[in-house]
């Protein structure tokens, strides 16, 4: 029990050291410090894991010179970033150029405020938590534009336009796939959504949303859209190194570049945390009876988070980058209709609650798989695979 509650008790003890007037402020400060500390550490670990993982996928060892097994590589990276010269182009718009990394990182960090990391371990339980998450996430588009436009560089501007177009297009399937979860759990509060996934069938199979047909489809749509929202491969067009140098980050160096990098990773953590909360049962253990063991709930949460991060890295090492038109077609003609159909399926699932389980599953699976196949076939009908002609590259 102590393992589970020591974080909450520690916070309570620290808050009680102060007079009553200061206590709310101190409480928030403690939460903020913990979140920043934990996720900055996770950022360092994730960069190392990513470089190691990509290295193994590409049949090379990855970083292995700094410290044992290259464990201190993030420290070296950090020192390098901090001591690098901060170059601002002469023609750049100085104020906007300076503000862009801040406008990116601050809202992304805010998004952690509503995610329940463990039992009773949520910084603020907002009534409209899910909406808050997407609201602060939308500031990333403004930041990308500010960075790209203020640099006065054609590659930066191209990258920014790509980033904005991509984020706007994939925000729709992202949000609509979460509406299914809201419909089933009847709440916008993330704590309530985790509570709706409590317990299990026969005490063995957890009641996670991903283990229902609509949840599985919703999770896949959400994860694909999340990949695009966080500009990760195979949707890393905004910073496609082989095409437009570094996208909207081209003219950034030193610590500002590190802030962009950090913003991207924080976005990845936040959206993985949201996926865990919405579809993978949040802080619940993979087997319901494990919830009552000594293992604290936040361990399960971060375990799932790391698993999702691993999938992010794995996909980056596996898939080639998409083209802009492929990206747009994929979002508007395929993901968005599927997300809308998923809404109908979740209604179907809700109203067939009294049916036998097998019949429900079969009906919903057919209702999802038929449009999936039909859409895919319709989109591929007029494709003839032959040598391509490009206007500018022959």
């Amino acid at each position: 029990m102590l393992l589970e509650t020591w974080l909450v008790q520690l916070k309570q003890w620290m808050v009680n050291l102060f007079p009553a007037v200061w206590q709310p402020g101190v409480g928030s400060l403690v939460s903020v410090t913990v979140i920043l500390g934990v996720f900055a550490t996770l950022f360092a670990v994730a960069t190392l894991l990513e470089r190691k993982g990509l290295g193994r996928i590409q049949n090379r060892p990855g970083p292995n010179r700094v410290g044992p097994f290259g464990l201190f590589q993030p420290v070296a990276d950090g020192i390098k970033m901090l001591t690098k010269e901060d170059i601002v182009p002469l023609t750049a718009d100085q104020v906007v150029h300076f503000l862009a990394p801040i406008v990116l990182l601050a809202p992304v960090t805010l998004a952690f405020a509503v995610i329940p990391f463990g039992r009773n371990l949520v910084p603020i339980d907002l009534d409209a938590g899910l909406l808050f998450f997407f609201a602060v996430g939308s500031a990333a588009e403004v930041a990308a534009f500010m960075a790209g436009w203020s640099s006065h560089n054609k590659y930066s501007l191209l990258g920014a336009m790509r980033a904005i177009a991509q984020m706007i297009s994939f925000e729709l399937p992202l949000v609509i796939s979460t509406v299914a979860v809201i419909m089933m759990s009847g709440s916008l509060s993330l704590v309530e959504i985790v509570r709706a996934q409590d317990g299990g069938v026969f005490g063995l199979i957890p009641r996670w949303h991903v283990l229902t047909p609509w949840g599985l489809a919703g999770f896949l749509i959400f994860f694909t859209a999340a990949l695009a929202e966080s500009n990760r491969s195979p949707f890393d067009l905004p910073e496609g190194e082989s095409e437009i140098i570094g996208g909207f980050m081209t003219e950034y160096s030193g610590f500002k570049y590190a802030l962009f990098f950090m913003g991207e990773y924080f976005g990845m953590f936040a959206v993985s945390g949201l996926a865990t909360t919405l579809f993978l049962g949040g802080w619940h253990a993979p087997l319901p009876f494990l919830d009552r063991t000594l293992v604290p709930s936040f361990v399960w949460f971060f375990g799932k988070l790391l698993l999702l991060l691993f999938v992010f890295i794995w996909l980056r090492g596996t898939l080639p980058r998409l083209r802009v038109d492929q990206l747009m077609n994929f979002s508007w003609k395929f993901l968005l209709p599927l997300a809308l159909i998923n809404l109908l399926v979740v209604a179907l699932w809700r109203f067939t609650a009294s049916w036998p389980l097998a019949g429900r599953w079969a009906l919903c699976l057919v209702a999802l798989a038929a449009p999936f196949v039909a859409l895919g076939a319709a989109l591929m009908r007029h494709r003839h695979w032959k040598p391509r002609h490009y206007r500018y590259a022959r």
Partner: protein
Amino acid sequence: MKSAFIVLVLVILTSAAAAVWLRKLVHAALCLTATFAGLAALYLQLGAEFVGFAQILIYVGAVAMLVIFAILLTRNAGMTPEVRWSKHSGIIGTAIGLLVLGCLLISLSASNGIRLIAANTPEPTINVQRMGEQLMTRCVLPLEVLGLLLTAAMIGAVILAMPEKHGEGLDSDGRKIDEL
């Protein structure tokens, strides 16, 4: 509480004024975004969580981006051209401003809210669930009409953006462009 309100109002007014007076259109658009965000913060300070978050999501996330796209896709994106003010423009502008203010004042004084505040009625607790229920029961007709209007606007936009039939899928040399 009061100081927070004053700070927010100052931020909103400053950024709104900057949006009007700044020479570069993109700067003006960014200041307008700051105004939208400030308004959202004002809603949050008044305890209207849902409206505040929706304001950020729609205005900062979508409307501001629309404005920026519109600026970048038109010519003269860098600077606003030098405007020659005519003699009467000041008078006309003031008149239009006063008209808008008058309309707002009339509709505000006619609304129910003022009377409720005057009568010191305790403010109702509004949560997302109650708002959703209201939208699906009492306000369902306006909601549907709005949805229809937006759908019509979207179809119109798609038709405007659709390529001409005869040259479909061909590049400038008349060669077929592969899509996917």
